């Protein structure tokens, strides 16, 4: 049986990727399962989707333990423990990460010895309106590693993405083709693993919680604005950067920031609280003087010194 796990953020298309791969397997005569798992139903939140495929009836259910292949849509997820990208990996599990880095660079950056492959995505024409068809690329690259044919991937694309315009469909096909080709040297690298019975699985460990008095068990929060303790800055994939020399201090970025992550320095210039900025980039779109630039987030949001201290009024 093949077990594949796709990790992404809500909105990156990893659920669709799992469906495309599932359909491609099906077209080659496999029995398949594909299902997404969300934490919160929101964009930007880590989620995963998984696929099982086998030539025989699949009795396994639930989330995948010991995946053969883990596809990651966004390298910043590896730094988020809660995303669980590295959870339950087996010795043989292969990582495929969408990244502009080479595998060696990424291993070094993440301090990881485990073998991994990287998939480079085409640069989008416009970061807001044209998202690269990541779902098609990740599904096609996975299919190559699993030894499936390009023909099945293309057919699966048409099954799962019907309703797209011809232009968008062509873009998806093109991206899938190029991702498939990129993985050519590694064709069939991921092999099938035997089905494991429930007997061989570890028994879950139980924690017994005592029944508490209602005053204890019904939650009450006595602190003010404790949400400030949450680092929602880790959600960003793009980071707004204010060029002070172009800024007229008009206040619109602060006015429209839904997070309240923009305040002012001693000279009245806006500055961004990167600990909480979720990277929606409304400020960038609304800035009349185009003084705000989107910078690719490298995941080091919590210790990024450059430019971040411009707001330090404390």
């Amino acid at each position: 049986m093949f077990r594949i796990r796709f990790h992404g953020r809500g909105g990156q298309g990893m659920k669709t990727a799992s469906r495309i791969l599932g359909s491609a397997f099906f077209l080659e005569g496999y029995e398949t399962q594909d299902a997404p798992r969300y934490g919160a139903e929101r964009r930007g939140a880590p989620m995963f989707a998984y696929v099982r495929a086998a030539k025989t009836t699949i009795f396994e259910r639930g989330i995948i333990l010991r995946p053969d292949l883990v596809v990651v849509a966004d390298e910043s997820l590896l730094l988020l423990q809660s995303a669980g990208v590295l959870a339950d990996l087996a010795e043989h599990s292969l990582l495929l990460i969408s990244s502009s880095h080479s595998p060696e660079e990424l291993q070094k950056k993440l301090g990881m010895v485990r073998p991994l492959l990287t998939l480079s995505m085409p640069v989008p024409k416009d970061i807001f309106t044209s998202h690269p068809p990541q779902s098609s690329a990740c599904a096609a690259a996975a299919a190559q590693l699993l030894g499936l044919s390009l023909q099945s991937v293309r057919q699966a694309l048409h099954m799962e993405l019907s309703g797209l315009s011809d232009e968008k469909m062509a873009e998806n096909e093109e991206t899938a083709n190029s991702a498939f080709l990129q993985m050519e040297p590694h064709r069939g690298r991921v092999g099938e693993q035997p089905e494991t019975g429930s007997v061989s699985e570890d028994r879950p460990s139980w924690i017994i919680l005592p029944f508490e008095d209602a005053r204890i068990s019904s939650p009450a929060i006595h602190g003010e604005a404790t949400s400030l303790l949450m680092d929602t800055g880790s959600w960003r994939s793009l980071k707004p950067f204010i060029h002070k020399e172009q800024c007229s201090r008009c206040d619109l970025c602060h006015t429209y920031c839904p997070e309240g992550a923009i305040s002012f320095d001693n000279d009245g210039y806006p500055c961004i609280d990167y600990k909480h900025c979720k990277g929606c980039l409304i400020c960038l779109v609304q800035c009349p003087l185009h003084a705000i630039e989107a910078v690719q987030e490298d995941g080091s949001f919590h210790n990024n010194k450059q430019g971040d201290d411009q707001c330090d009024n404390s």
Partner: protein
Amino acid sequence: MQKTSANALIPTSHLLGSGTATCSGCGALADIRLFYEILGEKTIFVNAAGCMTLLTVYPFTPFRGSWIYTAMASAPAGAQGVRDALDLLLAKGRLGKEEDLQVVVLTGDGSAYGMGLSSTSGAMERGLDFIYICYDNEGYGNTGHQFSAATPHGASTATSRGMTGFPGYKKDLFSIWAAHNPTYLATVSGADPLDMVRKIKKAKDLRGPRMFIALAPCPTGWHFDASQTVKIGKLAVQTGIWPLKEYVNGKVEHTRIVTKKRPVDEYLKMQGRFSHLFEPRRNEKVLDEIQTRVNDYWKNVEEGE
């Protein structure tokens, strides 16, 4: 200390804490942030189940004042209980006048337009002294965006797929609420903060039921990039789809009259939930119908004034 800008259009105090679990680019969060800045921390938010219950997830809260959670249909009933308790404590002298709180109901459109309508009607009928904020993201947002009574005609939702989208029509909650003759009633949009701040300030000083319907563009449910929230909010007003109006002393007044309205296409095209009306080919019938309904609405407004 937060520094302020000389040009600040809205308060810069950041009363509502950052770090909540709402989606990036959330239109509802922008609306509530503004409400909180104006209403202040001497408030108690009575929150029905919905996206905005994500604001407060134990042990984290963005509020500096009080907040309680109620079942989805009964936030106004909860508000009645809170108001009564406050009044009793005030009457008995156990609370000083300066300790009184503004009772604020916070619900989404699922509750306001649908299952909570009955308890809202009751609260207005009893003349309950409260503020009601409905953040309208036109669907059951936090469960995956199923259609609600606020979903516009033609929009695709998790439960209205297919080439024509949602077959129903957005309920006219404004008129339903106006029929109760509340003290104050207004539609607002976070993309027009000046209009919004003016209306909240006006309502803050009044007594009795003060009702708000706030447009809350939703990147997740409406399928657009998070950076476009304000742009879409502005287009909703510029196309005439979201009329900004208020109801005071039995009269409806439009607070923003756009003389040269943009075609509704511009608003619809930006959102994935309407993409089936444009791709693979334009659905002229549905698009015409949406435009005609908007035209008719404004024709009625002009004739009425």
